[in-house]
């Protein structure tokens, strides 16, 4: 099993290609790998419960983290996050990507 960390920096309301990360993350998860999507910068706009953008990822068993700094910059509070999305420090991302057998993909 390989760990995959997808780092999504793009606003889903600006760029349709965020679908690429969502679909790839689910496909990799379905093949038995451990998958995390780390939302950062405008990527955290998808984390709001009112956006209803990432429920299918949670349902597929993909771990979802949202950069706390990016959330604060955009005035998004933890209680506004969709179920299953956890605020996370950048240190968590760093620790995750220096684990062995881990692939980190920035989008």
């Amino acid at each position, binding site marked *: 099993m390989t760990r995959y960390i997808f780092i999504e920096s793009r606003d889903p309301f600006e760029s349709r290609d965020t679908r690429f990360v969502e679909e790839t993350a689910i496909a990799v998860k379905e093949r038995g790998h451990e998958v995390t999507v780390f939302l950062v910068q405008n990527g955290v706009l998808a984390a709001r419960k009112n956006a209803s953008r990432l429920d299918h990822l949670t349902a597929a068993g993909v771990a979802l983290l949202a950069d706390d700094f990016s959330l604060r910059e955009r005035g998004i509070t933890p209680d506004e996050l969709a179920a299953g999305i956890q605020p996370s420090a950048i240190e968590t991302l*760093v620790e995750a990507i220096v684990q062995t057998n881990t692939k980190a993909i*920035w989008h």
Partner: protein
Amino acid sequence: MNERSLTLALMDPPYESANSTTALRIISAALAHGISVNVFAYEGAVCLPLQDQAPHANPVKGTTLEEEDHPTTKAFISSLLAIGKDKLTWINCGLCVDERGATNVVDGVKRGSPADFFKMSSESTNTLVIPTK
């Protein structure tokens, strides 16, 4: 491989994308956790450590230089190099530097080539490429 290390490839020029801020945060967090970091700055990212960057006042807002306290990427990189010492290697792509005339960089920044990126990546625990959009 006992010591954990991370190689980053950066491409965005300063003051254009939040990618630069996030990259600097990743470097800072890694160093704080004892993780060695190699940076290969490519394309416009070779301007991130330019010595000629200058903070400025904001005449639109009426703020002075001191009030504005404008952060520069060169200052962040200087600080990270001072904090990281031998745990942070920053290499600017030489051809990208020549194209942009971006030779006057802060102390500690080295000149190299994509071959250095390949070597650093091969020897690191992991590599993260942060491309331009």
